[in-house]
């Protein structure tokens, strides 16, 4: 959780200092943006995943094992579906944070690889409010679409309590 305690600007400057010289010289590229976001948002995903895994009964994967499923099958068919809510939450969180972050990336962007947020700030600074507003609107819509896509692809909530669609007459007496 340490990466939360560090202000974004400090992270950005640190990345520049660390990666501006060989052997790993990646400042000004797209990769450094990706890496920065991955490490900055990872703790949330890890914590959410840990919490979700801790909720799963250990005997569930033992049951899967005794039925002849190997570890990989057990993970993909039992564990992953059960931690899916946590997975979705982390994905959405990380994505939104990455799309809206300014402080961490403001030193990392270059003319070639810019971020929408920093570009919008640049337009506001230049007094081009029209462009800034248009970009902002596009950013909001794009983020929304992606969140809905994530929900549709991995967010199907199939476990838990009896859903409202359950036919009451079909339940056991």
């Amino acid at each position, binding site marked *: 959780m340490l990466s939360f305690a560090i202000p974004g600007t400090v992270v950005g400057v640190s990345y520049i200092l660390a990666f501006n010289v060989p052997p790993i010289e990646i400042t000004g590229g797209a990769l450094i943006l990706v890496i920065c976001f991955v490490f900055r948002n990872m703790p949330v995903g890890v914590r959410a995943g840990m919490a979700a895994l801790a909720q799963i009964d250990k005997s*569930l994967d033992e*049951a*899967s*094992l005794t*039925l*002849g499923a190997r570890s990989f099958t057990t993970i993909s*068919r039992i564990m992953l579906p059960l931690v899916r809510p946590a997975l979705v939450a982390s994905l959405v969180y990380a994505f939104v944070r990455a799309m809206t972050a300014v402080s961490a990336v403001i030193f990392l962007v270059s003319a070639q690889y810019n971020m929408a947020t920093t570009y919008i700030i640049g337009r506001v600074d230049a007094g081009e409010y029209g462009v800034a507003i248009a970009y902002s609107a596009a950013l909001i819509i794009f983020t929304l679409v992606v969140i809905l896509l994530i929900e549709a692809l991995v967010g199907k909530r199939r*476990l838990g309590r009896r859903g409202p669609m359950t036919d009451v007459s*079909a339940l*056991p007496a």
Partner: protein
Amino acid sequence: MKKGPASVEFRGIVKRYGSVTAVDDVSFSIAPGELVTLLGPSGCGKTTTLRLIAGLEMATEGTIAIAGKDVTRLSAADRDVSMVFQSYTLFPHMSVLENVAYGPNVQGVGKARAREMANEKLALVGLAGLGDRAPFELSGGQQQRVAVARALVLEPQVLLFDEPLSNLDAKLRRRVREEIRELQLSLGLTVAYVTHDQQEALAVSDRIIVMSNASIAQVYARATGHLARRLRSCLLDLLSPRDQGRSADLAGLCPSAALVCSATWAIG
């Protein structure tokens, strides 16, 4: 696919967790088609013993053989053993049918065939037609029966029960244990059954292994097993007109044998 029930052999099994010895030099065997109960207070090592058979724990010392084959170092997935857990452990994100069909599905049996096998076993435990339900839509007893169906679906050589009835109420407990026993007898399954309830142990088992302090304290065989067969043959001898001398001899050795024999014969 037909393999039939198999024997289980435990030879000098020791299981240590650090400095704690959970199972200390335990040796026993389970004959094919026999139901053996591990009975004992909590913490006596009975569940660990069961998990050693399943391959969910690895023995520190000794060898385990199933059907005469050494499986000591095989993982749970490679042993032909299924287990029914105390807490049912149905997969909550699958329907009842998908739960039961899980075994054949991951073994690479075709989808249609897996469903067929699952339906067959659901019918066997009296839950035909409930395949589309989610596990949480079933009562505790029904969930436990689904767990039994799921364990049976691959027709394992050995079936393990880990306190399967402890989450059920007293009345249901009696019924389900009778169902388990009937199923075991009719399918001729080799079963290892863990419980801390003496009555339950007496009701279902062919043999009872009483454990305490990580080792075997006592073994009891049910009268309907070997002993009853001996008694029955002795009764036959007594009734046989051909070999008067020998029957008289037997009767002399054991004056009350005839009485005991007639009692077991009547029951048997």
